[in-house]
């Protein structure tokens, strides 16, 4: 992986006042101008500068994308979409953790519930225009894995998404879903174009490795169009890794 030297890397965090003079002369090896003089990112929650010392100028680390967390509760007396609730949106690493730490673990949800984390603007349903030509990498868990594996695998999935772990193919990612089901829980990463073989396979390989699945474990990718017409999990795998 190409690691471009970033000017702030040397010597830790410098005061921006000191940096302004140097900046004009300081360029990255690629010849690009170095980043603008750093400014403290003010917290939208108004926390910065409240504690006195410099280090309390708390940093937020922006994510490449803003992500929306959705919660689905299976109430069969209501339409599917009426059971879908937006919990909140996050666009910094810190806000992600604030959210994650203040919601129920997936393994503690009741059966029939889902969490979904999707890029802002994409609804967690295959009908969305950015999902409908896509599909999902599906990880099916055995019943007993809810208490041993589910939370770890789901968190790893979330970190893959917000950290853009699939590099340039991360733009293919729409979101991820965890289904809590009596018959066995499922986790899936949704991508937007099932025909993008290179992107789908790259994502699948990286995802499988990040989950720490054994090489013997096979996970499959199914096009939403196939899943929708099958009405059960017999949809064929378009790809496997």
């Amino acid at each position, binding site marked *: 992986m*190409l*690691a*471009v030297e*970033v000017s*702030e890397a040397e010597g830790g965090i410098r005061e921006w006042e000191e940096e302004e003079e140097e900046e004009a002369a300081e360029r*990255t090896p690629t010849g*690009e*101008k170095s*980043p*603008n003089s750093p*400014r*403290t*990112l003010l917290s939208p*929650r108004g926390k910065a500068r409240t504690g006195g010392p410099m280090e309390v100028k*708390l*940093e*937020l*680390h*922006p*994510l*490449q994308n803003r992500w929306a967390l959705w*919660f689905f*509760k*299976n*109430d*069969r007396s*209501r*339409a*599917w979409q009426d059971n879908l*609730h937006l*919990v*909140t949106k996050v666009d910094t*690493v*810190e806000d992600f*953790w*604030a*959210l994650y*730490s*203040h*919601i*129920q673990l997936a393994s*503690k*949800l*009741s*059966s029939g519930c889902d969490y979904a984390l999707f890029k802002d603007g994409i609804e967690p*349903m295959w*009908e969305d225009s950015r999902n409908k030509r896509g599909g999902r990498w599906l990880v099916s868990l055995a019943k007993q894995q809810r208490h041993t594996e589910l939370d770890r695998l789901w968190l790893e999935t979330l*970190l893959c998404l917000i*950290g*853009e*772990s699939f*590099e*340039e193919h*991360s733009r293919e990612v729409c979101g991820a879903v965890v*289904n809590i089901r009596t018959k066995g829980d499922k986790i899936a990463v949704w991508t937007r174009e099932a025909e993008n073989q290179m992107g789908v396979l790259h994502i699948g390989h990286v995802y499988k490795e*990040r989950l720490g699945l054994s090489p013997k474990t096979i996970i499959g990718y199914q096009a939403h169009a196939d*899943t*929708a017409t099958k*009405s*059960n999990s017999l949809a064929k795998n378009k790809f496997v890794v």
Partner: protein
Amino acid sequence: MSSSAGSGHQPSQSRAIPTRTVAISDATQLPHDYCTTPGGTLFSTTPGGTRIIYDRKFLLDRRNSPMAQTPPCHLPNIPGVTSPGTLIEDSKVEVNNLNNLNNHDRKHAVGDDAQFEMDI
């Protein structure tokens, strides 16, 4: 009339925006400017701009940030989700107080979740 709408246009050739990856292993490597990315470009407008990639160790380290300790503002009260003390027990509990979304009656959908059965 037989051709599709917009047939007057030549299909445009689209190409992916080229990206360059900058590996970040520590918070000090990040620009402090909210709109810049490591490497110093604005990704959203700059061809060849960088993508903000965080490895899992960095993300996990940030879990203990003071900024991550307080709940997000405007977190809706969803029993069993955002208020863990009141865990829902299976389907006994109504979710009618979720998000004020059900102040009016809803028609029951035909076939309930037939729209997207991904969970069987």
